[in-house]
């Protein structure tokens, strides 16, 4: 049995998970992130778990890594000196964007700066039309001149994105070739390779974002791979977590770093899917609440949903349309500005607002006593007794309840005419309400009724709020895994190798050219096989096919799974039915109109790795009670004593009943209402809500 290592670099901590495939060993490590050289913390963290476990380098099959490095470079604008080559007349497509106001009333609205400034956007006199025909051929000499200028300007990276290249990539490929000849030192991404989809602004934006961080990715991943081998003796493959829930080889991630932008949150959702399946819940709602944001993701049939709509560098943190569009597959989730550090205030309408402004970690909540003057969710949770001032972060940090009380009274209680407890409960409840609303909208957009879904709660503040959120959503159950703080790293362990491909080829379903469709599909499958065969046996690779379809003249496509093998006219009925089922799930009806296929997609996957969790001895758990504490119980409208348990002393099979508090080092499980609580053999805490 081999071991695998997961390494997740977050903003504050780098989490390491070491696990044996049969679940017989599972070790967690946490070290402070080293932002300038993230590999330092990874090396230190892995060395630590290896020393503690005594596992030899030769026993470790591979390392799976996820990082926010590329996202941070995009947000902080610390990427390469980047240029764009595009069709004559279109250098401003990236700046003109969609021309819309994402905020109707804010006159001071800002738009994100394009990653390539106007003086670094170059045009070539070529043109391809919507049907793929060449209206104006590429002039290679002109491209050479542009390449020389790029060199002279000291450009480090260039995106090539030409009009209609998603139907005909010949010109982009030709430009790529010339750039390699003339300026081989410049890093290049071409749009038809990365994201062959219609809409020039989105495609160009995605290509620019990719190439902007490509150099960073190449250097960083090469260095990490080298250090893992030279300093730790780990010679196995380095896999990188992608935003779509699969992992890829480091080389692939170096070429397409933009595919890895949301890897941490994606892995959290994967962990939810994995744990859910272990417990027999194929449909589950992943709920991750940290210091500044909360994320929710619907898992259906044991799989997170994938979307192609994503933005980075949003000017308004959570406002759609305010960032740079990145059209890559990401696990679909909704993120809102509700976290432990979110600030509560009363606005002009005397409405209580919680978030999205955050006190961050500095100055942080008032109770941190680091100069924070705005009451936060954490302050409210403390006043309600949900957090223990003496046992925050396992007792490493002392919380100041009295100051929190006086500030919350001043900022929230007084303006609303509420007593301290009422105000604190208002903040807690409003936060839960915001998160539940966001989760519900996210589920409804997918046509799912979230009331059936158990919640899987993690992140530092997740277990504090999940019970309340579940009550609002009328969820039957909340699952609290042990180690809520390392769920992303655990999620890495469950991710299969996966590569995705897409080809746009709009055509009516009833008059498809099956030869060209079969050619497209098998070309993508061949590419997938070639990409994965380096790490896998051919027969371990599976393919999934999808068609993005719509009724003729609609503008948004609906994705449906379609059959494998050679397709022909006899498959039309099945494809139509799959589309109608998906459409109906989203919109509640179907129409009597012609259907067209816009894009074909293939996902090539390796097998889902075995990732068992260690099992516990059964016992009674009675010695686990640490004491009692007064917490706010909404059903009884006041503070009441409830038992407090030590999570690490709870044995499998233990049964408790809520209300109760269960403390672990990184978080606190708050059950502030009636519930049956049990501990399963994987050390998950399970709270079954009693319906009122």
């Amino acid at each position: 049995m081999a071991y695998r290592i997961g390494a997740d670099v977050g903003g504050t901590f780098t989490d390491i998970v070491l696990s044996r495939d049969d679940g017989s060993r599972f070790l967690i490590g946490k070290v402070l992130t080293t932002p300038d050289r993230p590999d330092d913390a990874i090396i230190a963290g892995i060395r630590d778990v290896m020393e503690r476990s005594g596992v030899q380098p030769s026993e470790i099959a591979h390392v799976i890594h996820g990082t926010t490095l590329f996202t941070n470079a995009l947000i902080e604008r610390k990427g390469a000196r980047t240029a764009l080559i595009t069709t004559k007349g279109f250098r401003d497509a990236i700046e003109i964007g969609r021309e819309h106001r994402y905020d109707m009333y804010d006159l001071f609205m800002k738009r994100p700066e394009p990653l390539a400034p106007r003086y670094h956007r170059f045009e070539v006199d070529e043109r391809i039309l919507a049907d793929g025909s060449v209206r104006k051929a590429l002039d290679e000499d002109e491209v050479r001149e542009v390449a020389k200028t790029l060199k002279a300007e000291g450009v480090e990276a260039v995106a090539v994105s030409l009009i209609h290249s998603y139907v005909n990539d010949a010109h982009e490929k030709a430009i790529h070739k010339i750039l390699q000849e003339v300026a081989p030192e410049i890093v290049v991404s071409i749009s038809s390779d990365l994201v062959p989809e219609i809409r020039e602004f989105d495609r160009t934006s995605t290509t620019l974002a990719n190439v902007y961080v490509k150099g960073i990715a190449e250097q960083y991943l090469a260095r990490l791979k080298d250090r893992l081998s030279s300093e730790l003796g780990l010679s196995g493959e380095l896999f990188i977590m992608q935003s779509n829930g699969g992992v890829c080889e480091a080389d692939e991630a170096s070429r397409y770093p933009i595919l890895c932008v949301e890897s941490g949150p994606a892995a959290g959702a994967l962990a939810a899917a994995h744990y859910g399946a272990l417990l027999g819940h194929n449909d589950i709602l992943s709920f991750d609440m940290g210091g500044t944001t909360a994320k929710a993701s619907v898992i259906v049939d044991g799989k997170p949903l994938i979307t192609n709509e994503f933005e980075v560098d949003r000017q308004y943190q959570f406002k759609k349309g305010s960032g740079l569009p990145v059209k890559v597959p990401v696990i679909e989730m909704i993120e809102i500005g509700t976290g432990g550090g979110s600030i509560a205030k009363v606005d002009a309408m005397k409405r209580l607002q919680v978030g999205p402004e955050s006190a961050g970690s500095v100055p942080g909540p008032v109770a941190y006593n680091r100069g924070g003057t705005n009451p936060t969710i954490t302050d409210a949770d403390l006043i309600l007794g949900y957090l223990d001032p003496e046992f925050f972060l396992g007792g490493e940090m002392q919380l100041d309840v009295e100051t929190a009380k006086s500030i919350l009274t001043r900022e929230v209680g007084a303006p609303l005419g509420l007593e301290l407890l009422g105000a604190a409960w208002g903040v807690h409840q409003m936060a839960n309400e915001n998160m539940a609303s966001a989760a519900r909208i996210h589920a409804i957009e997918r046509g799912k009724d979230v009331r059936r879904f158990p919640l899987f709660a993690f992140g530092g503040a997740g277990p504090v709020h999940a019970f309340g959120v579940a009550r609002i959503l009328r969820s039957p159950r909340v699952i609290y895994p042990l180690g809520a703080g390392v769920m992303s790293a655990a999620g890495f362990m469950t991710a299969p190798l996966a590569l995705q491909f897409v080809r746009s080829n709009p055509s009516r379903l009833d008059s498809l050219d099956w030869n060209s469709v079969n050619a497209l599909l098998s070309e993508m499958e061949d590419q997938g096989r070639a990409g994965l065969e380096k790490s896998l046996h051919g027969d371990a690779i599976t393919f999934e096919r999808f068609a993005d379809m719509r009724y003729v003249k609609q503008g948004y496509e609906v994705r449906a799974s379609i059959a494998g093998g050679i397709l022909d006219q006899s498959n039309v009925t099945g494809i139509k039915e799959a589309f109608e089922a998906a459409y109906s799930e989203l919109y509640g009806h179907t129409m009597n109109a012609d259907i067209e296929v816009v894009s074909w997609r293939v996902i090539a996957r390796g097998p889902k790795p075995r990732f068992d969790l260690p099992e516990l001895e059964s016992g009674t758990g009675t010695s686990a009670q640490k004491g009692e504490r007064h917490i706010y119980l909404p059903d009884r409208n006041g503070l009441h004593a409830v038992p407090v348990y030590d999570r690490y002393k709870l044995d499998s099979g233990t049964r408790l009943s809520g209300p109760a508090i269960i403390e672990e080092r990184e978080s606190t499980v708050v059950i502030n209402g009636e519930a049956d609580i049990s501990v399963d053999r994987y050390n998950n805490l399970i709270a079954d809500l009693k319906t009122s």
Partner: protein
Amino acid sequence: MAIDPITFDILWNRLIATVNEQAAALIRSSFTSIVREAGDLSAGVFDRQGRMVAQAVTGTPGHINSMATGMTHFLAKFPVETVKPGDVYVTNDPWMTASQLNDITITTPVFKNGKLVAFFANCCHALDIGGRGLSADSRSVFEEGLQIPIMKLQDEGRPVDALFELLAANVRTPDEVLGDIHSQIVGNEIGAKQLLSFLDEFGLDDIEDLSEEIINRSEKAMRERIAALPDGNYHYELRIDGFGEAVDLKCNVAINGDSIAVTFDAPPAVSRGINVTLNYTRAYTTYGIKCAISPDVPNNEGSFRPVDVNAREGSLLNAQFPAAVAGRHLVGHFLPSTIMGALSDIVPDRVMAPGFDGLWDTHVSGVERGTGKHFSYTWFSSGGTGALNGQDGLSATAYPSGIAGVPCEVIETVAPIVVRRRELRPDSGGAGTYRGGLGQTMEIEVLTDEPYLFSGLYERTENPAPGLKGGHAAAPGDLVTTPDIGLKPKLSELIPAETIVTLEIPGGGGYGDPKDRDPEKVKSDLKNEYISEDAARTLYGL
């Protein structure tokens, strides 16, 4: 209200969530790029009395605010006691709703246990409504297309087939128009479904108490904002092209305690389609005020109450039936800038200099080369917005609407059009300490062998956006044809197949003296060719 403040806030948030769902369903299932790419729609929930309680975060003030004030007309025609479950109502009456026949408003009552509890309504721009096609050259509303008085589109669950057939027979693109109407119905249904589950969850019978409180609080907040402004009369005058003759939009903003009265002095209505109905004038006036003094106050019945809007009956801003109104935005979109000009005396740091303002609306139809098929296509484009104290104007960005442009690749896929270039226009933003946003250039060619119909509803080709507080005016727009056939904006003309049309969309006005502009910004503008060397030297003294 009996419920506690926290529960109230929660209910309010939930209500807003239902209208966002409504809008999302409508957008995603729409058949036209106008709705789904441009977002030319509005969606809202109304109480039993027809008062707008919440709106979705999308669309244009012309749709939202005029839908809000238009609901009373639905209730006048179908009093609440006659409203039945499964009914759906429709109209495109310009005087009652959004001042243009293309804008179709659809209203759906919601019932709980047999009792009417709310209405969901939305307003969408239909791709076609018959008549001359979208242009400003009609002489009365009769030429502008099919008029749909307030009537039933669905009667207790049964579609009114006669109306659908009539619609299909009267529009050039029946698939899209009927498809979008279908999406509008679905959007309301989804909103209604969400509302019912929300009422169940909180054990509410209706939204009347909630609505009363929301409206009262919004009104109170709005009045507080107004009361904080110094009493007095403030004037501004904005000149625009008009139809053949320049129009001066004069306004007087009277602030008296906690209310505002805006009085417009506009010339008489004209015999072409740029006239504005009072409902639409009111919509853009309340919007302009909100942008300047209360962007954070929710937009509903309550926030409209303290604002009184007057324009002489029969004038351009209060045109009477049967005036032609298809291009009403060509005048109406300039009202927020007019209002802000007047307010610039008292809140100079919260207003924006005038910008391109009038959305450029291009309509092309004809016969496709090769296939011989008829096509008809409309898209919108934006120029530069005005500068503010502290911030340059935005280039090629919508205002005062939320309408998006359409990607060229989409235009070319849907219609036999080639966009030869689409780029920012250097020097089109007015100079200033803060520069106006740049306009854009779009050069269009149609793949056809026959003359095609071109209609450009364009403004500011003669009178550019002025600057504010010493800022300079922007460059005006232009409509250029190659070969030159002397094409004029605001007219629908059949033009030779080979004509290449270039839209030079105007920029926004500057704010403050350009000599005070940060030299680093001037250098950067020059390097990026947002301004020419000549402008850097002569206007900014670089």
